[in-house]
């Protein structure tokens, strides 16, 4: 933290029209109430669990690892980033979980049942993800069909295909090399945790600092403005779907690698948490915008809440309730704070 002046929220709220600003605070310090409120709630929640969970179970390194390094969290990071890419360009992709499923099934079936080299199996899985993304893009971008309809339909198709290929069974694939690719411990955390953080950082950089990223944001904000400014709108939208498919495939590979098997029937349970995290992420860091770092924070926020509640003795149903409530309440709060800061 720097020693820049820390202004109370009220000073931020009063922002009259000024021609010149005396001294601008850096961007990340402007309007802190709207940007970091979720972080404060997160801290408060963690503090509560710290004292409320009996037997000091919450303050163990095991807890820390299950929040930040659980397989579920890592898979969610990749899946949520996949959703971010399409949402940023103003598209919706409801097929990400199914694409993850078909990719994971591809890898597991090829590597486990047919003894294909694990690297090749994973490449095939990525290829399937890219193909699924391209199929979505074809219907949405080229044919101009609503992205809601297309991705819902294609998602269902992939789910069915995955059932067919796996005969609706667990497919195991034991490959020590692949397992270490995901679970090798680095500084106490599985290496895949760093992949997720790295991915979020790269994506955040792409969106903030490259022409491609800026163009994507403009396409999402107003495609006609982007087109009249010379941005090639259609290829970028197409590419966003393909990239989203590839990231979903990575999520699938992570499951196969860390668990050593894949159960296709679980894939759809990842969709809502991933989307919830993305929308919850619009309440942090860059309020009102889909942003990778905010999404990352949101995922860990949700994981913390669920783990804490489970340690308090709640059953697994609390997971869905918390995902849902957390999303609605946090986004509402962020909107209220943001409207207040604008000073009406």
């Amino acid at each position, binding site marked *: 933290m720097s020693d820049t002046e820390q202004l109370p929220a009220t000073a931020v709220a009063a*922002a009259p*029209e*000024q*021609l010149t*600003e005396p001294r*601008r605070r850096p*961007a990340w310090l*402007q309007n802190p109430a709207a940007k970091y409120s979720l972080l404060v709630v997160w801290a408060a929640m963690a503090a509560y669990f710290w004292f409320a969970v009996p037997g000091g179970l919450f303050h163990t390194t095991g807890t820390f690892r299950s929040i930040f390094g659980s397989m579920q969290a890592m898979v969610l990071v990749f899946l949520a980033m996949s959703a971010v890419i399409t949402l940023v360009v103003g598209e919706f992709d409801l097929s990400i979980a199914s694409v993850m499923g078909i990719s994971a099934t591809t890898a597991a079936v090829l590597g486990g049942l047919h003894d294909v080299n694990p690297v090749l199996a994973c490449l095939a899985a990525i290829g399937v993800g890219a193909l699924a993304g391209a199929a979505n893009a074809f219907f949405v971008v080229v044919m101009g069909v609503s992205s809601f309809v297309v991705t819902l339909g294609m998602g269902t198709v992939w789910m069915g295909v995955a059932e067919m290929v796996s005969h609706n069974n667990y497919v195991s694939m034991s490959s020590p090399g692949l397992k270490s690719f995901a679970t090798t411990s680095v500084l106490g955390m599985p290496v895949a945790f760093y992949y997720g953080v790295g991915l979020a950082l790269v994506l955040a950089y792409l969106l903030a*600092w*490259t*022409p*491609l990223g*800026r*163009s994507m*944001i*403009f396409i999402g*904000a*107003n495609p*006609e*403005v*982007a*087109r*009249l*400014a*010379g*941005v*090639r709108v259609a290829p970028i939208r197409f590419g966003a779907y393909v990239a989203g498919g590839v990231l979903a495939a990575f999520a699938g590979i992570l499951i196969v690698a860390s668990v050593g098997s894949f159960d296709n029937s679980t894939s759809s349970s990842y969709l809502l948490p991933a989307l919830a995290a993305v929308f919850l992420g619009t309440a942090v860091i860059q309020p*009102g915008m889909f942003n990778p770092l905010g999404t990352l924070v949101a995922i860990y926020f949700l994981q913390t809440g669920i783990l804490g509640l489970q340690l308090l003795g709640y059953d697994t149903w609390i997971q869905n309730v918390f995902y849902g409530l957390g999303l609605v309440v946090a986004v509402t709060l962020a909107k209220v704070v943001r409207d207040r800061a*604008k000073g009406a």
Partner: protein
Amino acid sequence: MPTPRLEARHASKTYGAARVLDDATLVVQPGEIHALIGQNGCGKSTLVKILTGYHAPDAGMELAVDGKALSLPVQWRAAQAAGVSVVHQDLGLVDHLSVSENIGIGGFKRTHVSRRIDWRAQDRVARETLGRLGLDIDPHAPAGDLPASHRAGVAIARALRDAVPGEGLVILDEATRALPREELARSHEVLRRIVAPGTSVLMVSHNLEEVLALADRVTVLRDGRVVGQGLDTAGLTEADLARLMLGSTVDAVVRSPAVRPEASAAAEVVGVRIDGHDPLDLTVAEGEVVGITGLPGTGFEQLPYLLGGARRGAGSVVTSRARVDLARATVPQCLDAGIALVPERRITDGLAVELSVRDNLALPTMRRRGRPWLVRRGWQDRLAARAITGLGIRSRGPGALVRELSGGNQQKVLFAKWLSVEPSLLVLHEPTQAVDVGARADLLRTVGETAAAGAGVLLVSTEPTDLVETCDRILVLHPGRPPRELRTSDPDDVLEAIYGVPTTAPSTVDTETGALHV
């Protein structure tokens, strides 16, 4: 003098520092067609929105219908009960539902016992109301299948549904806009039938031809003030109304022509085809500002989008940087050739309002100034700072969202965005639309400076004062005629050239245009 049907006095509306409506008065008499006109942003839609209860007026307004005061802000149910109804611009018809349903919505007739909709009674109401308008339309036909004039009739019938003949006021909020010109005579008859028993019509419009043809009296708004109240249309011409709407050249932006005789061409436009017009050839010299105007709706409005590569067309443009074939041109190609397009609709085509001023300004130059892996902030900040001081953009700073800015400041951002690409041909479409007088002066001054710096400027506009104040020459385009070139400083000359020609049918060439108003 009878009691006015509607009497609104001291109507004002202030947003922050901007007063968009200033002590306006509107008096509509029983049985008359009253027109409310003015440019975009003059306050006429604000006034209508106050009357329909969408906006709350500033304190001090008085409003009475048939002499009975209405409480403010207007409660729409109370206004309806007093007999006020409104037909919106888009008519609000649901295409796949029947005429009868479209008329009945919001007040269906119901049976006594089961309280379901009594379709037979509903059809009767529909037929009856349409009959009052002299329209014979099958109540069972889907609204989407009707011709334009009948659609407007159905929307009016809905508004009149509950009115006692001879009472009430129908507000047509630009609702006649949907009518083709050849339907003008027809709609005239419909409106006459409404007002004959004593009902009043308030039509909001910006089409002067239509106003003169249909209305008895007219109230003119300019910059939020009433500049002509209840004028009798009998003694008025379109040029008179235009002059009232636009005002005298109070804030005249005097620009001394900057074209040197030996100046080379900034852009040569060859054989550009606009629908209904002959191919257009045009050379814009460096430092020259050329105005393009014509009758609204006749197609000359397409020119900016053709030249900018936003719409495909025939013809080509040659600039000092490149030659662009408009049949195959894309926006990036036109940009590379140095053609920058400032579109008319700044919210939908011009700016991403949810993003910051800086981001919007930087967009067109991003690929040129940024590297594929990094767009630095430094030049974006400098660009934004230069634009903000150069054009006098009032905002919280470069990080302010465009949405937070006033219309005039948004327009300045749009200008600065395209000036930043340093175009050889700057194409402007209605650049001063819905901006205040001060911003207008800043914008037009910038046009002059851009030309003085060596660019060619094409100003496509329907504002005669803008044209005469900034342009070296003005081309008036009429379908099927050679363009007429004017060099004048008198807005009346331009109006005369636009409206003084016997009008032929607008862009769609229609052979059935017998009855036309000259």
